[in-house]
C-alpha cells in the first residue's frame, strides 16, 4: 500500500476553495492541518480515540461555519485552533468524559503524549531541543496551560498564584521567544 500524497495549497488558495465549497478544499484542509490540530486536541483530551472524535467534530464545525471566518481578522489556523481548543474543552468538561477519569496532571501529559504518539518530525523542526532549552520553565508552563490546555489568563493567574499582569507579561515573553526562534 503506497502512502498517499498529501494535497497542499497556499492559505489563500485554501480559503478561496473553502469559500467556493470546493471538494478539494476538504482534502487539503485535512492534509494540511489535521496533525497540528490533533496536537492541540490530544493534549487536552488524552484518550486517543476521543481526541480523534473531537478532531472530526472540529473539521465538521470548520466546514459548516466557514462563512463566519474572515481573513481580515486573522490567519486561518488561528481561527481553526480556537475551534479545536473550545471543542476539546467542552469534551473534557462534559459529564460522560469526567466519569472516565482520564484527566491527568499537566506535567505528565507533555512527555506522555510524546512517548505515546508518533509526533511529526520534519526537517525544519530538527531544532526542537534548542527551543525547549530557550524557553524558561515558567514560559513553557504558561504556554502549555494557555495554548495546549485552554486555560484563560485569569485561570492561569489562579492556578499558578501569580498576578494577572505577570501572566500577561510571561505569555508575551514566551511568544516573543517563539518568534525569535522561528524567524
Amino acid at each position, binding site marked *: 500500500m503506497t502512502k498517499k500524497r498529501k494535497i497542499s495549497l497556499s492559505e489563500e488558495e485554501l480559503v478561496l476553495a473553502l469559500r467556493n465549497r470546493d471538494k478539494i478544499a476538504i482534502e487539503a484542509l485535512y492534509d494540511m492541518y489535521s496533525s497540528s490540530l490533533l*496536537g492541540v486536541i490530544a493534549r487536552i483530551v488524552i484518550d486517543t480515540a476521543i481526541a480523534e472524535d473531537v478532531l472530526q467534530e472540529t473539521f465538521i464545525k470548520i466546514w*459548516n461555519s466557514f462563512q463566519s471566518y474572515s481573513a481580515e481578522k486573522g490567519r486561518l489556523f488561528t481561527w481553526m485552533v480556537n475551534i479545536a481548543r473550545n471543542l476539546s474543552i467542552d469534551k473534557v468538561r462534559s459529564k460522560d468524559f469526567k466519569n472516565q477519569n482520564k484527566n491527568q496532571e499537566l506535567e505528565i501529559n507533555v512527555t506522555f503524549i510524546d512517548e505515546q504518539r508518533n509526533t511529526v518530525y520534519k526537517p525544519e523542526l530538527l531544532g526542537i531541543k534548542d527551543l525547549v532549552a530557550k524557553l524558561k520553565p515558567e514560559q513553557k508552563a504558561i504556554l502549555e496551560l494557555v495554548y495546549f490546555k485552554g486555560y484563560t489568563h485569569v485561570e492561569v493567574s489562579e492556578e499558578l498564584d501569580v498576578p494577572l499582569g505577570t501572566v500577561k507579561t510571561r505569555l508575551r515573553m514566551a511568544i516573543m521567544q517563539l518568534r525569535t526562534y522561528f524567524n
Partner: protein
Amino acid sequence: MEDIKAYIESGILELYVLGDLTPNEKLQVEDMASKYPEIRAELGEIERSLEAYALENAVEPSEQLRDKVLNSLLTNFADDNKFPTKPFVEREITEEQFSQYDNIRALPTPATNSFYKYAFAASLAALIVSLGALYNTNSKLNDTQGQIALLQSRNQSFTNQVNYLENDVTVAHDATFKVIELQGTKKAPGDKLTMAWSPVKKKVMISLPDMKLAQNDKDHQYQLWAIVDGKPVDLGVFDAKSDTTSNGMLEMKSVANAVMFAVTLEKRGGVPSPTMDQMVVAAPFKG
C-alpha cells in the same frame, strides 16, 4: 506612536490570538488592527509563531481517520442547504488526486430485515386468538361451577330431608321415645312445638312439620333448653321457617334426665343461659 507600543506590549494581542478576550475586547483589537498597520503586523507575527509552535507539537492522526473525516464532510457537503450551491469547479486534478476520491466510499447500509416485522404480526394475531379462546373457556367454566353449586345445595337439602325422615321413623318405632308438646307462653299464646325424648337413649328430637313458631330473623335463633336439677341445660339452636314443607325430625343435643323443656328466642348461635322473658314455649316432663 508611544501609545501603540504600549498597547502592543500590554499582551492583549497575544490574548486575542489565543481567543481569550471578551467579545467587546475582540472588537476593540480588530478596530485597532484596521487603523494601525503595526498592530496588524504584530498580530500576524504572533499568529505565525503559535502556528509554527503547534506544528512542532503536531500529532499524526491514525491512517483510517482521514477517510472517516472526509466521508463525514462529504456527506455533509451533499445535503448542505445552508449555502447557495456553487457549480462544481473544474480543477486540474492529477490522476493521483483523482484516485483519492475513489477511496471515499459511503458506508454500506445494512439491508433491513422484514422477518421480525412479520414475526411480530403473527405473534400478535396468535395472542388475540388465544385471548378469545381463553375468555370463551372461562365463561363456560363459570356456568359449570354455578351448576355444580346448585346441585350440591340440592343434594345437601335432600340429605337433610333423609336424615329428618330417618329420625321420624326411629321415633315412631322406638317405644322409649316420649312425645312432649310444648305450649305457648303468655308472650306467644299460639305457639307450639312437638318434641320427642328418649331418656334411655338420651336422644332429643323436635318435629319440624308440627312446629308453630314465629319465623326468626337472621340475627336470632330459637334455643331449646332442658331443666336438669333445677338448672337450664342447652340443647342446641334451630330455625323456624314460615314454609312448612320440611318433613321429619331434627335431632338436638342429648340429655339424660330432665324435668322440663323450654324454648327461648336468643341471638343467633345461642347463649349460655336462657333469657327468661324470651321464653315462647315450655312444658314439664311427666314421666
